[in-house]
């Protein structure tokens, strides 16, 4: 059957997985989920696949995985023979896990603001924006320190899945009314990311850098 991604084109979380699949040049099959307006991810059929009612879901043979961060770990471990995207070194591994958790939790406030502004989701958008801005400042601070040390990427000397997990919702934050003016280090990091070979954009992220 090969790799199958249950995907929604406008989903930043699915985009995390699509980015790594392209970086690793892995062939995969896509099943489009009618996220909006169909709410297909909340149907009984989809809940049987992922009881959390969320996308992305990855299928690889018998294996089924939910959660973009977990999927990134699996793909890196299984298919990245260079071990660049998820190194074995315990310190690097631990730091990457720390930033993956950040990407899956604190940074998701930016996703919430985007869902409110774009798709009309009912939620407290001012709170979401404030939480997202606090989270952005934390990564911007980290990247400022890395810059003083002459480093570009969140962990180590090369892009890892920490960068891939953090990139989408920061790059898409304008969709949710969050600008990048106060984050000069995030801007430089995003540009470096967009210049990577085999990077591809998505709606909401300008094509050219």
């Amino acid at each position, binding site marked *: 059957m090969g790799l199958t991604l249950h995907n929604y084109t406008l989903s930043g979380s699915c985009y995390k997985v699509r980015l790594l699949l392209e970086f690793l040049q892995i062939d995969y099959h896509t099943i489009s989920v009618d996220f909006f307006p169909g709410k297909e991810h909340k149907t009984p059929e989809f809940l049987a696949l992922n009881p959390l009612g969320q996308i992305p879901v990855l299928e690889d043979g018998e294996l089924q995985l939910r959660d973009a961060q977990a999927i990134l770990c699996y793909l890196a471990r299984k298919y990245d023979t260079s071990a660049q995207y998820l190194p074995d070194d315990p310190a690097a591994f631990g730091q990457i896990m720390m930033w993956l958790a950040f990407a899956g939790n604190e940074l998701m406030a930016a996703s919430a603001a985007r869902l409110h502004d774009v798709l009309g989701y009912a939620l407290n958008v001012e709170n979401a924006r404030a939480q997202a801005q606090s989270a952005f400042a934390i990564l911007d601070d980290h990247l400022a320190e890395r810059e003083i040390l002459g480093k570009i990427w969140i962990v180590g000397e090369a892009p890892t899945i920490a960068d891939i997990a953090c990139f989408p919702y920061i790059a898409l934050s304008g969709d949710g009314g969050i600008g990048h003016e106060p984050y000069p280090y995030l801007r430089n990091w995003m540009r470096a990311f967009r210049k990577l070979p085999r990077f591809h954009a998505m709606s909401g992220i300008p*094509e050219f850098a």
Partner: protein
Amino acid sequence: MTVTSDIVALNQWLPVAYPGQVTSAKPHETLLLGQPIRLTAASDGTVTAVALDASGAPGRELPIIEQFAVIFTTLGDSPRPMPIIEAFDEPDRRIVNCGSVGVHASPFRIVENFLDMAHFCFVHTDILGAKNETEVLSYKTEHRQDVDEIWATGCQFFQPAASPAAAKAGEGQMTDYTYRVLSPFGVMLYKSALGYADRLDAICLFIQPKTETECIGYMPMALLDDTSSNTGMIDFQQTIFLQDRIILENQRPKLLPLTPRSEMPTRADLSSVAFRRWLKDSGMKFGLLHEEAA
């Protein structure tokens, strides 16, 4: 929040929901030209609408028309008639409801972007335009007085993936376009359909102006397509609209200026020039920058 006093804006049929958005379990509250309204659905699916007063209490009932896969209402006493779009009655077409998307922009910036071809290569790269085929050839615009609509005809552009069907087939094509401004807040296009020599796909954009700078866009389509899934067709259109959205939200000033001094058009902008003139002649003030007031 105050309701606009602009009679031209008030006397329009405007979208307020897409089919299925309002259910008997869940009323839908929204804003139209500064007026809060509430939509409710009966158990048989019939939708009704009321204007809400400042305390949120229901006031006068508003008329509803459901057409072109969109639910419309009007705040005016003598609204501009609904347009006639025959494509939505043709039985062999796929009628696609793409939901709605919020945009922080003037409704007229959204209309102009829809009419524009010069951005295809930069905003919809490898879909509606190719990086090395940027020229916009001359086309015509006219004000069709009988229906009071602005039409742009004879438009052509090379497109790597012009439609969901064309994207699937992997075929680039020279696409013919005809644009039609249906009303100040409604616009549509007809474009070449893959495999149909003499019929055209129809794609509409109806804009719900919540305020002068905050809108909701509804994009129903009537397509000639036997190959794409419903999800695939929605996906295609939402991709395009979200690409336009970053442009729309970042144009300055937010309100559309009518004087050419501040925004320099080129020949490719013929339809936007015609649209701005038509808007000015209509007496519309809502959503527009009034530089001439000084």
